[in-house]
């Protein structure tokens, strides 16, 4: 039941609790109890809006940084990751498999600002061996949502 509640909320965080209850054949109080519990357990973290900033006049850049890192004894990569994710400029940090170790997403006002952040803060960090910066030029799809898709219903209004 928990996973079903989570799947519904993952698709639409604005879904009202009474509708979730109807959809899952639960009572409203059961749904609220589960949501409350999952929030306390750190399963349900936060609801946010997904925005296509390109359609606004806000100017900023996003970059994905590949980091090669030497793991530390007893700590693995966690210690380095922790030092990275504390920066507010850093939007996401993942430990990944493959040709590099840590994937970081950074936002800044300008390319220069991001590049300097990488050069000054990330590249100089102990155990970080190399960085590779990829600026994001265009977002096509994020979190399952296609940016160019129009919400327009093409169907004829009534069909039998």
């Amino acid at each position, binding site marked *: 039941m928990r996973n079903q509640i989570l799947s519904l909320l993952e698709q639409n965080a604005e879904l009202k609790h009474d509708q979730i209850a109807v959809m899952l054949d639960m009572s409203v109080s059961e749904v609220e109890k589960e949501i409350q519990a999952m929030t306390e357990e750190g399963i349900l973290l936060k609801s946010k809006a997904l925005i296509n900033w390109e359609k606004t006049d806000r100017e900023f850049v996003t970059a994905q940084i590949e980091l090669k890192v030497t793991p530390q004894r007893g700590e693995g990569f966690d210690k380095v990751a922790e030092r990275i994710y504390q920066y507010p400029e850093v939007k996401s940090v993942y430990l990944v498999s493959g040709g590099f170790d840590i994937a970081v997403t950074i936002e800044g006002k300008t390319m220069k600002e991001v590049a300097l952040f990488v050069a000054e803060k990330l590249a100089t960090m102990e155990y970080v061996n190399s960085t590779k910066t990829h600026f994001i030029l265009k977002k096509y799809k994020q979190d399952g949502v296609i940016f160019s898709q129009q919400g327009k219903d093409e169907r*004829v209004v*009534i069909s039998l």
Partner: protein
Amino acid sequence: MIIKDKINKVITDMKPSGIRKFFDLVAQMPEAISLGVGEPDFVTPWHIRDAGIYSLEKGHTYYTSNSGLASLREEICNYLDRRFNLKYNYKNEVLVTVGGSEAIDLTIRALISNGDEVLIPQPSFVCYVPCVQMAGGVPVPIVTKEEDNFKLTPEALKKAITPKTKLLVLPYPNNPTGAIMTYDELKAIVDVLKDTDIFVMSDEIYAELTYGTKHRSIAEFPEMRDRTILVSGFSKAYAMTGWRLGYVCAHPDIIAPLTKIHQYAIMSSPTVSQYAALEAVKKGDNDIDAMVSEYNYRRKVIFEAFNQIGLECFEPLGAFYVFPSIKSTGMKSNDFCENLLKEQKVAVVPGDAFGESGEGYIRCSYAYSIEAINRALDRIDKFVSSHK
């Protein structure tokens, strides 16, 4: 010369849909929220569209064999066996048609001659009656009732049978009511039919869209298998309405004459659609399951809401429609729909569009996003409250 007078009298006399006026009204109001659409809101899953595109890139732009691509027919048979335990031979028991609609037309044209009676449970899809009329047959409606959950009962069937009865249309899961027939209920129908020569055209276009229970087909019954004509298609299961592709499965001696008509009228179904459909039946089971799960959430919301609004509604277990009663408002279906459209700008379909017995009901589709459904329900609630 008056051109009108030269038109085939059968066509001239054919009743246009009784709700034409309402349709025209809706057409003038594009800003209305609609719950009137009879097709999925999902776009065809990408891997299916991609298979269609790929078939064009490969240059598959020719006719196929009259009965459809052999590989598609074979996969349709595998699919029917896998999902519904139905066994057909792809070599001579399947015909790929232009939508389920063509399959219905072909079946009626091939079986019905002058004076043959066709039993049509109503409320039901709008095309059975005119197809029977065009074939020179006599449509005989059987009224199904809300108190029976709009199912066909053996008693009502028995009463409607005469020596002239040739064919029974079995439209389940049902558009517009959302009713289904369980195995036991079908068994009771089979018991009535087994000592007759009556054929059954089972329109199972919504077979994949059932909730909490799996669709059963009358063709599963050995005594009915050879005189059941199974009509289905890709439109509803895979959200492929615009591809216009369906199929019909039956005994070889039925498929042969159907293929003859199809050969002269259509030649072969669209090739690109057949290649896309091949991908759908082979690899689309997961798409169906995802869509059914989504429809089911919406179904529960809309069913609950109508009962709360005070428009009583039996629980539909199939298709993507609810069919609430509006009798408590004292309005006729058509007036209810016209007023709702004018006052609250919500379009739903009057129940009598699906036969006289649909009077007193409206059909609302839940092939819409939950947001659109909620908006429409709010307005319907306001409308009903303001007319108390």
